[in-house]
C-alpha cells in the first residue's frame, strides 16, 4: 500500500475563502493510500515547505499530493521540497484547486466538492507515479540572435560582451532595422541614427559577434542548449573581402526600383546599399531587378568596379551551426491600409504613413531633410495627423493599442513646427496616452509651445480637392463636424508583427497569439522567455513597445541567454516518451506527428517459438523529445507512453474524477 501525504494550501483567502478545506482534508484522509492530510495558509512559504519535508520523513511518505495553485506556478517548488526530504521529485503531484476551482467558482459547497474530486484525481495519479531520473547533457556555448534591429543589436552586444560567441542574423542587406529609418526619437528629440550607428559599428567590429546579413533562418532542429540551425546566406553577388565600399557600382547602375528603406518614396538602384550608414557597407545586387540577371545584359557594375568585387556567379550558402540559446528579435511591420479606404492611402501622394513622414523629415531621406509635399515638392502648411489608424479597431484593424503612436505624433507636430514656424498641425485622437518617463511633458510641449491643435474625434473621409486634401471629421468634444484643408495627411498606422512571424514561430516551435506576436512564457514573471526553453524574445516581435523598452527587454533576453550559456550542462526533463516494444506494430504513425524529430525507426530481433523474428519498432531520442505527447495520441495500440503522464496514470485520473 502506498503512503500518500496530502498537503492543502489556503493561498491566503484565494482558496480558503471559496473552498471548505477542512472537509477536503477529511475526505482526503479516506482516499486509498492516503496516510496524512495537513494544511497551511501558504504551502509555498518556508513554514509550509518545512511541513512537507518533516512529514515525508516522520510519516515515511512515498508519494506527495499538494492541493494548491496551478502546477505552472509551484510544481517545481514542491518537487524541490520533496527532493530535499529524499523523495524522488516526480512522485509529487499537484491538484490545482485555485485556477481550476476557487478562482472560477462562487458557491462554496460546489467548489468544495470539486476540490475533493481534484484531490482524489491527483491521489489516484500519484499512487501510480514512478520515480524518474533526469539526464545531463552538454550546452553549446554559442548564441543566435534573429533580427538585427535595435533589439537584436543590443542583445548581441550584451551576450558578446560576456565572451560568448554570438551569430547575429539579419534578413536585409544591413543591420539597423526600423530604428535606422527614424528621424528623431521622443521625448528627447535626439537623432535616431546618431545613437544607433555607434552600436551598429560596435557590432561590426566586435570580436565575438559574427554578422550574417542578407541571411534567413532556413530550419531549426534540436532543443535547449543544442539547437541546430540552418542559415541561408543569400547571394549578395559582391565579394565582401574585395569590396572597398567606393559606391561607383550603384552610381552607374541603370536599373531603378522603389527603395524599401525610403518606404518607396525614392528610387534605389538594382545594386545598392540600403542607406549611407549601412553595416556592412557592401552593396548587394537585387537579382529580381538587375538587368544582368533578368535579361543577361548590362554588367556595368562589374565593368566599373575597381576592386573586381562583383561576382554574378555567387550562390546562396547554407550554413549549419549549433547554438545553446536563441534570441528572437524580428520587429514589426505596418498594418495593411487597404481596409481603410476612407483615409485614401495610396490614392494621393500627400496621404502618407508615419513611417513615410519619418523619412520625409530625415536629413538622409528622399528630400534631404526638407519636409516637402510628395505631390508638388512644396512645403506643407496645414498637416493633419490621424491617430489609431488600424489600432484599437476591433472590426477592421487590430484591437490593441500600438503604444508608440501618441508620442511619435507629438514628435512629428514639433518637428513640423520647427521646420516651418507658420505651419499648423492638427491631430485627431481617440485618447492621448502618455504613460512614460517625461512623455506627458513632451506631449504638453507639442500642444502649448508648438501649438499643435488636438481634436478628439474620428476622421470620416480624406479626399483631394484642387491641390489640397479635405479632411472631414467629427470633434466629439464639441459634437461638431470639422472640415480641414490639409497639405499633408499623416496616418499613425498600427504596427503588427512581421508578416511571416507565424512561420518563423512554427520553425522555432514557439507560440504566436491571435495577432502573430510571439507569446511570452508568463505575461508578468517570464516576459522575455518563450514557452520553448532556450528561446527568448526581444522587441516588437512580442508586442508593441518603444525604443527604451525594447533595449531593456533585449538586455533581459540577453541576460537569460547568458545564464543558460554559462552552464556546462543542463538537466533534461525525464518526462519523455517511451516505447513499449512488445505493443509497437512499427506503423510509425508517430514519426510524422513528432514536432521535434525525436522518433526514428529501428529493427529489433525477438524469438518466437524458436524462430528469430526481425521487426520494425519506433525509437525515442530522449534528448530531442520534449514530452509533448503527440506521439502517444497518434499511437493506436497505446505503445507510446509519456513518462510522468502514462496511459495508466491518465486513465486512473479519468476514473477518479468520474467517481
Amino acid at each position, binding site marked *: 500500500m502506498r503512503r500518500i501525504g496530502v498537503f492543502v494550501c489556503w493561498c491566503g483567502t484565494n482558496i480558503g475563502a471559496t473552498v471548505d478545506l477542512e472537509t477536503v482534508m477529511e475526505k482526503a484522509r479516506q482516499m486509498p493510500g492516503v496516510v496524512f492530510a495537513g494544511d497551511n495558509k501558504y504551502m509555498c512559504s518556508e513554514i509550509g515547505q518545512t511541513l512537507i519535508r518533516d512529514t515525508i520523513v516522520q510519516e515515511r511518505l512515498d508519494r506527495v499530493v499538494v492541493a494548491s495553485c496551478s502546477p505552472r506556478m509551484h510544481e517545481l517548488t514542491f518537487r524541490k521540497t520533496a527532493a530535499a526530504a529524499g523523495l524522488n521529485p516526480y512522485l509529487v503531484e499537484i491538484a490545482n484547486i485555485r485556477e481550476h476551482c476557487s478562482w472560477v467558482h462562487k458557491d462554496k459547497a460546489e467548489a468544495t466538492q470539486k476540490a475533493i474530486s481534484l484531490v482524489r484525481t491527483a491521489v489516484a495519479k500519484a499512487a501510480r507515479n514512478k520515480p524518474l531520473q533526469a539526464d545531463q547533457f552538454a550546452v553549446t556555448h554559442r548564441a543566435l540572435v534573429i533580427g538585427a534591429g535595435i533589439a537584436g543589436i543590443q542583445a548581441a552586444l550584451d551576450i558578446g560582451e560576456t565572451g560568448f560567441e554570438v551569430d547575429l542574423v539579419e534578413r536585409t542587406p544591413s543591420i539597423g532595422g526600423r530604428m535606422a529609418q527614424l528621424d528623431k526619437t521622443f521625448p528627447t528629440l535626439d537623432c535616431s541614427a546618431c545613437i544607433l550607428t555607434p552600436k551598429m559599428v560596435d557590432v561590426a567590429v566586435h570580436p565575438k559577434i559574427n554578422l550574417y546579413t542578407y541571411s534567413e533562418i532556413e530550419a531549426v532542429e534540436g532543443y535547449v542548449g543544442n539547437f541546430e540551425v540552418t542559415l541561408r546566406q543569400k547571394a549578395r553577388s559582391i565579394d565582401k573581402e574585395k569590396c572597398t565600399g567606393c559606391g561607383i557600382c550603384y552610381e552607374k547602375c541603370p536599373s531603378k526600383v522603389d527603395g524599401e528603406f525610403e518606404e518607396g518614396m525614392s528610387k534605389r538602384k538594382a545594386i545598392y546599399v540600403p542607406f549611407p550608414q549601412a553595416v556592412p557597407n557592401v552593396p548587394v545586387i537585387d537579382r529580381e531587378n538587375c538587368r544582368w540577371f533578368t535579361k543577361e545584359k548590362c554588367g556595368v557594375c562589374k565593368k566599373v568596379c575597381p576592386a573586381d568585387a562583383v561576382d554574378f556567379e555567387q550562390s546562396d550558402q547554407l550554413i549549419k551551426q549549433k547554438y545553446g540559446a536563441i534570441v528572437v528579435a524580428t520587429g514589426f511591420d505596418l498594418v495593411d491600409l487597404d481596409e481603410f479606404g476612407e483615409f485614401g492611402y495610396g490614392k494621393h501622394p500627400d496621404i502618407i504613413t508615419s513611417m513615410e513622414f519619418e523619412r520625409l523629415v530625415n536629413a538622409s531621406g528622399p528630400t534631404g531633410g526638407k519636409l516637402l509635399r510628395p505631390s508638388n515638392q512644396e512645403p506643407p502648411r496645414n498637416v493633419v495627423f490621424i491617430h489609431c489608424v488600424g489600432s484599437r479597431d476591433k472590426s477592421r484593424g487590430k484591437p490593441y493599442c500600438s503604444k508608440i503612436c501618441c508620442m511619435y505624433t507629438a514628435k512629428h507636430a514639433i518637428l513640423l513646427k520647427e521646420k516651418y514656424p507658420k505651419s499648423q498641425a492638427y491631430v485627431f485622437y481617440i485618447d492621448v496616452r502618455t504613460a512614460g518617463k517625461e512623455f506627458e511633458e513632451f506631449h504638453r510641449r507639442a500642444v502649448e509651445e508648438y501649438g499643435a491643435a488636438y481634436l478628439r474625434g474620428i476622421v470620416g473621409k480624406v479626399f483631394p480637392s484642387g491641390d489640397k486634401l479635405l479632411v472631414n471629421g467629427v470633434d466629439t468634444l464639441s459634437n461638431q463636424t470639422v472640415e480641414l484643408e490639409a497639405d499633408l495627411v499623416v496616418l499613425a498606422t498600427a504596427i503588427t508583427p512581421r508578416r511571416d512571424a507565424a512561420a518563423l514561430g*512554427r520553425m522555432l516551435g514557439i507560440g504566436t497569439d491571435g495577432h502573430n506576436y510571439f507569446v511570452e512564457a508568463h505575461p508578468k514573471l517570464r516576459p522575455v522567455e518563450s514557452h520553448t526553453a532556450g528561446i527568448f524574445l526581444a522587441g516588437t516581435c512580442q508586442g508593441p513597445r518603444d525604443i527604451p523598452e525594447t533595449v531593456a527587454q533585449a538586455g533581459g533576453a540577453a541576460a537569460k541567454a547568458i545564464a543558460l550559456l554559462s552552464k556546462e550542462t543542463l538537466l533534461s526533463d525525464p518526462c519523455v516518451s517511451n516505447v513499449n516494444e512488445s505493443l509497437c506494430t512499427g506503423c510509425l504513425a508517430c514519426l510524422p506527428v513528432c514536432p521535434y524529430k525525436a522518433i526514428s525507426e529501428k529493427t529489433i530481433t525477438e524469438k518466437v517459438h524458436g524462430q528469430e523474428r526481425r521487426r520494425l519498432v519506433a525509437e525515442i531520442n530522449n534528448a530531442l523529445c520534449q514530452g509533448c505527447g503527440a506521439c502517444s495520441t497518434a499511437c*493506436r495500440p497505446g505503445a507510446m507512453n509519456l513518462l510522468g503522464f502514462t496511459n495508466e496514470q491518465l486513465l486512473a485520473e479519468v476514473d477518479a474524477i468520474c467517481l
Partner: protein
Amino acid sequence: MKAMLQKIRKEAASVLASGEADLVLGWGKGPLWWQSYPAFIEEEKETGSLTWDPFCVPNLSKYLLEELWVKQKVALFLKGCDALGFNQLLQDKRVDREKVLIFGIPCSGLIDPQKVERAGLHQGLHSVEHQGGELVFSYKDDQKKEDPSSFYYDKCLTCRHPNPVVFDMMLGDAVAVNPQERFAAVGELEKQDVSERYRYWERQFSRCIRCFACRNVCPACSCRECIFDLTDPRWLGKANVLSENQFYHITRAFHMAGRCVDCGECARVCPVDIPLTSLNRKLIKDLNELYGEYDAGVEPEKEPPLITFNPGDPAAFLES
C-alpha cells in the same frame, strides 16, 4: 465465373509448382451453398479444391500477418475491396510487399445469403453462380434465373473500386464502375438534431455483444495486441453496459479515421447489424471536407490527413 475459377486454379498450381510461392491463399467450398471459406493451399495437388463463386467474400490479406513470418512468399487472390485493405496493411508497414504475389480479381459484386434467404430461394439450394448477367440458382432438379441486382451485398452496391488497385497479375478484364452514392445514409443522419442522433446510436450500440468481429475482420485493425484486450492499463471494462460499448465503438471509429478503406466488412460481419458503415463514412466525409479528398487504401504512399500538418489546416478550436 467458370473461366475465372480455372484461372485461379491454374495460377495457384503454377506458382506452387515453380516454387514462386510456398503458400496460396484462396477460397474453398464448405458443405453448404453459401459457405466459401479462406483456403490455405501449400501443395500443387490441392489447388483443385479452390473455388470462386458469388460467396467468396472474406478478405484474405489479414492472414498474411501470421503467414509471412513462416513462409518465404505467399500468393493470394484479391478482389477490389480486398486490395484496398491490403494497401492499408502495407501503409501500416504490417506486410512486406516483396514477399507477396497478388492476383487481382475484378469483381462485379458478391451475393448476400441473407437476401437469398429473404427471397425464399434457399430451400434445397445447391449453388449460385453468375451466368451472362443473370444469377442462376441451382437446385436438385431445376434452376431458377434471377436479376442479381437485388441480391448483392449492400457494400457492393456502393463499391467504388471493384477492380483491384494493387496486383502483380490481373485475372480477367476490368468491370464497370457504377457505385451508388455512399454518403446517402450519413446525410440522412446528419439531418437529425444532436439528441435524436445520440438516441439513434444509443439504440445501435446497446445491441453490441462485443464479439469483436468488426475489429477482427478489419484490415486497418492490425495491432499486435489490441488496446481493447489490454489488461494494464485496462482501457475497456468487461461490464456489459452501454457506456463501455460506446467507448469501444467510438474509440475504434477514431482509430479508423483517415484509415478506413470503406470495404464494409465490419458491417457485414456484425451479428447484430450495427450500421458501422455509417459511423466510418461520417468520419471519411468529415475528413474529406476538412482536409480535402483522401481515399484510404488507394495510394498507400500518400500520407494520411491526420498525421500530416499544413499551416492552412482548419483549426476551429483555436479560432473560436
